[in-house]
């Protein structure tokens, strides 16, 4: 029983990180209808810059640098590339993001060279906490707490502020939103910035021994890939779904790895995704339009 609870906590901790990535991915998709395959690179870029400055300005300073740089990169991709390709199809833009991802990944790997694996979770990585009879890694608890705070803040903003109203209006009907005086370019740019911020935060949990494994930052990009099935399981059009999709992915991989083996934990995520796609093609919480009959 103790092991099971421990696995659940670990699974929820990892799932919360996937939820952060998937939420950013879905916000960008809702605002622009572009599937951003460069999402892992946003995390990687932020993590790389944070690693570069960590020793000189300290961990907290590095967090600010990492998070902001991921957001700035996301904004640059949107302003310099996506928004200028006005007549390109969404499919072409998705392929463009694959190109961006490849370039950033190759360059960061080249710059890191053969140096020792960089890690970013200094205050919590490889440290444990005792909760009664349980011994839980701090990384999972901090990740879960951080994600819960961010999810709460995001959903309050999404439901209650005029920014959220503009986001929802634009994602539902671009023409009607424009006729309300909503500036499409600002909404789109803000969606990419939020996506970048969340990816920049997620990397501080991905580039740890506890979640990312022995290769630290280098594995962050690979691990971040699990955000795609998280977003698809939850439904690409649902912000709430992306969070739940992330938790499902985290729990599935943790339970699979614990009770079968590590490889099955990885594969099980994609099996769940396939089952969801067959049963509910638009994902668990994806858009199903309500029509009066």
């Amino acid at each position, binding site marked *: 029983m103790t092991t099971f609870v421990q696995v659940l906590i670990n699974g929820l901790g990892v799932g919360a990180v996937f939820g952060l990535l998937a939420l950013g991915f879905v916000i960008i998709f809702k605002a622009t209808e572009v599937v951003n395959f460069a999402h892992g690179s946003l995390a990687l870029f932020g993590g790389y810059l944070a690693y570069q400055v960590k020793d000189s300005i300290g961990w907290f300073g590095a967090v600010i640098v990492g998070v902001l740089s991921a957001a700035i990169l996301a904004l640059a991709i949107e302003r310099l590339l996506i928004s200028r390709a006005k007549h390109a199809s969404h499919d072409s833009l998705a392929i463009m993001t694959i190109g961006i991802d490849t370039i950033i990944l190759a360059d960061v790997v080249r710059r890191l060279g053969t140096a020792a694996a960089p890690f970013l979770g200094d205050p919590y990585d490889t440290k444990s906490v005792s909760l009664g009879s349980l011994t839980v890694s701090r990384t999972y608890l901090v990740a879960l707490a951080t994600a819960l705070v961010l999810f709460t803040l995001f959903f309050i903003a999404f439901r209650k502020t005029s920014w959220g109203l*503009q986001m929802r209006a634009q994602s539902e009907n671009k023409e009607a939103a*424009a006729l309300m005086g909503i500036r499409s370019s600002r909404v789109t740019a803000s969606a990419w910035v939020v996506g970048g911020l969340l990816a920049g935060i997620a990397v501080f949990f991905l580039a740890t021994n506890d979640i990312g494994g022995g290769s630290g930052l280098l594995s962050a990009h690979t691990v971040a890939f699990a955000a795609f099935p998280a977003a698809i399981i939850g439904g690409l059009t649902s912000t709430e779904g992306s969070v739940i999709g992330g938790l499902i992915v985290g729990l599935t991989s943790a339970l699979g790895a614990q009770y079968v083996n590590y490889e099955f934990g990885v594969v099980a995520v994609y099996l769940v995704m396939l089952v969801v796609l067959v049963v509910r093609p638009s994902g668990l919480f994806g858009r199903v339009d*309500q*029509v009066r009959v």
Partner: protein
Amino acid sequence: MILLSISDLAVRYGRSVKAMHGVSFDVPDQSVVAVLGSNGAGKSTLLRAISGTLSLHGGEITNGTIELDGTRIDRMDPAAIVRRGLGQVPENRQVFSRMSVEENLRAGGLATPPSRRAAARAAVLDMFPKLADRASQPAGLLSGGEQQMLAIGRAMMGEPKVLLLDEPSLGLAPLIIEQIGRTVTEINERGTTVVLVEQNAMMALTVAHTAVVLEVGELKLRGDADELKASEDIQRLYLGGHAESEEHADAEQGEAAERLERRRKSLKVWSA
């Protein structure tokens, strides 16, 4: 005073589809101007050009100017045009169906200064009290007539100087259409200029002061609504026509019966 002025307007979709050319007319302040025309005449294209949403449909203005209250708006984006005092109820209402009625109204007031939003909301609910009862319902679950009320109310939340209405009667029952007509008059009496695009010429000409008729992207007729209502061309094209004499009517009826009989015969051949 002229509030909206369209001069020598030409519109193209894609690289080669010329949807409109040489269209000019003025919309006086505090008036209701009806824009009539059959399907494909360019009515919606005209409204998209005025509201700046042509690019969302792959179109662009290739010639001419549009001025709102003395300022050129034909090169502005829709958000800037809305902020200059133009509102539009788009074709098929296009309410935000997954958002509540209240959220739709909030979205309509986004371009209105915060200090005036409460007054705008009160005016809209005064005009459409039903929207207050439905405030928390998803807009997609409202009836067609209620959705049209919401679409008009949402546009009025922007306190527009000019309101463009794109076929508000489309798909609605006759009683609701009458109600929409009364609403247009009320909006106008409260000080908003209205440009009403309609296929329902009877309703449009009843509420409008003046009207223009578009045909295949060109302006064919213009004049006082009452004069156009009495014109033979308008009667024939948009108001169901009228027979000149009883004999004429009988002859037409006979021809119609003959055509029906011929069709029946051919159907028999196919079904034999």
